[in-house]
């Protein structure tokens, strides 16, 4: 056991607190903003004390924003629903395609194998804007513009390489002997894959899935160009708060709080998979 003196503990506590303040203060500030009106947000000097209001959330949930300049329809809840739908479908499809592919790349040597894997990774090198113009033209021809299917497909550019490369590493870490042992005891190739490889790579699959979900959730340009208002996710939907009569800071803050919540909850839930020990103690090192 490590022995820590009281003074050391205090110093450590203060330092950790400083780091936490640095990272969490913006989030905290946004949380405060979401309960304020535009007037209290923009006053100078800013103050921590104000009269809280839930008008921002109410506006988001009801879809009607009433300002002095007039009424504004907000499709925020629909955007949020789109985000959930698009990100979930994209990650599920990526897992379905990426996990078996990752296994193949990890276990088998085949012609052009490394090249294919690298090409898939290279999708992450190019800025999305580079492919957007040709992509939007193709999508028009194929009739995929402004469809959920088209967006989910494009999101594979984000999710698939991520899942493929992270999960591949986890598969490579599993001793092939464990799989050999399972096959020799009389199980088919498929059973070995589903009952040995996948469960043992689960922490990696969870981590990759979560990461892909966050990346898909945060995507902005693809949906901005390839979809219209009723298919767009929150990232694009938030643009609506930049109105002719000014920027609706309060609603933006409330929208951020609402849109961060799902990913935050997912991360908290998946955390236990992320830290779960891999094949500890199974193979003598």
């Amino acid at each position, binding site marked *: 056991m490590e022995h820590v003196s009281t003074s050391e503990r205090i110093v450590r506590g203060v330092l950790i607190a400083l780091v936490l303040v640095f990272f969490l203060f913006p989030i905290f500030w946004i949380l405060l903003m979401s309960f304020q009106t535009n007037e209290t947000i923009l006053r100078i000097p800013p103050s921590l004390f104000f009269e809280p209001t839930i008008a921002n959330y109410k506006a988001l949930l009801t879809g009607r924003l009433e300002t002095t300049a007039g009424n504004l329809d907000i499709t925020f809840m629909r955007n949020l629903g789109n985000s959930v739908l698009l990100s979930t479908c994209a990650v599920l499809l990526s897992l379905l395609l990426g996990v078996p592919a990752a296994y193949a790349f990890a276990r088998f040597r085949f012609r052009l194998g490394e090249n294919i894997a690298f090409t898939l990774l290279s999708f992450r090198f190019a800025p999305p804007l580079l492919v957007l113009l040709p992509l939007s033209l193709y999508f028009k021809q194929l009739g995929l513009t402004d469809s959920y299917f088209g967006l989910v497909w494009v999101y594979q550019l984000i999710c698939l390489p991520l899942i493929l490369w992270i999960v591949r590493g986890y598969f490579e870490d599993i001793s092939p002997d464990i799989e050999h042992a399972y096959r020799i005891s*009389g199980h088919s190739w498929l059973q070995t894959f589903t009952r040995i490889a996948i469960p043992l790579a689960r922490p990696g699959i969870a981590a990759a899935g979560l990461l892909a979900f966050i990346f898909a959730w945060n995507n902005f340009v693809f949906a901005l160009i390839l979809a219209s208002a009723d298919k767009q996710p929150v990232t694009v939907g938030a643009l609506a708060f930049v109105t002719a009569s000014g920027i609706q800071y309060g609603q933006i803050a409330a929208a951020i709080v609402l849109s961060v919540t799902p990913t935050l909850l997912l991360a908290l839930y998946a955390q236990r998979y992320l830290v779960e020990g891999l094949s500890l103690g199974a193979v003598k090192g």
Partner: protein
Amino acid sequence: MARLELKGITKSFKNGAVLDDVSLAADAGEIVVIFGPSGTGKTVLLRLIAGVHDPDRGAIFVDGEDMTDVAPDHRGIGMAFQNFALFPHMSAFDNIASPLAARHMAATQIREGVERVAKLLKIDQVLAHAPRELSNGQKQRTALARALAGSPKLLLLDDPLRNVDAKLRFEMRLELPPLLRQSGSTVLYVTQDYKEAMALADRIAVLIGGHFVQVAPPDEIYRLPETIQVARLFGDPTINLIDVTPQASERGVSATIGNTAILIGEQYRAAVGRASLLGVRPEAIRIGTAAASAIAADVVAVTPLNERLVTLLKTGDGREILASQPSSERAAEADSQVGLQFARDDILLFDKASGQRLKAVNGAGPS
């Protein structure tokens, strides 16, 4: 129980041939130990038999049936890996049950089968534990139990005692032979510990450099090793190998060590004048008083090794010789002059250039 036959197995990886035209036959129920220094392809051979790798050339027959292209799950094999390869996310019970579960047995039958082998291997009290909660010895026993549980026709054991401590290894060396015989399987057992090989084997197949150098029962391997390498690998302390050139005299064929010519037997007449190595096991050397017929030597050091005394000696011409005697005998005094007698029947002669043992002619003496 099944007869296993390997015919001309060749396997090479990127960095060269590992197995080169290897053939071997194991009778039903026989325990064959594949012995060799590390990196000679013992593990590769087992994996070829298990179907985890495919041979480049050659065929594998089980009971006369060609198994070369059969998938590993249909070969009816049980295998224990050197690194145990337990399924980390399953309990010891489920690990052992896996060959039975693969055959879709009823739950009660599976339970019976698992408990039977677990009791045999004394791990019935830890069946509910996950592999990471098991001690090394228990892991190794679980791996063995898993290999045995399906009552396979062919049992492949890849150095299963490698990763357990010395005490446990010794225990298992005694426990394993009856266990393996009871299993009724034909057993291929890989090890690089010659004592383990001697304790377990019906026959030992010595694999060196991708070839079987000698396949014979343990006592024959020990008494009549085919090559210098085999002679060196078996025995502790190792065999004494002394440079000699046999000569013919009116008394018979002799070799000169120090200033003493010792008779090595008429059967080695063919070796006269050839550069040879004379091999004699430490326990075949008697330490006595200096005499005309004995090889004069100085005692350098006496080391007691439990039940044996190992004496390092130096002859007049500077050769070092190890002698081993039961510790009940009187130890030679350090720095004293002694005379050495070699038991003539235990003298081996190897051709120095090829390393092959020189066979006696006319069947006289050890052959």
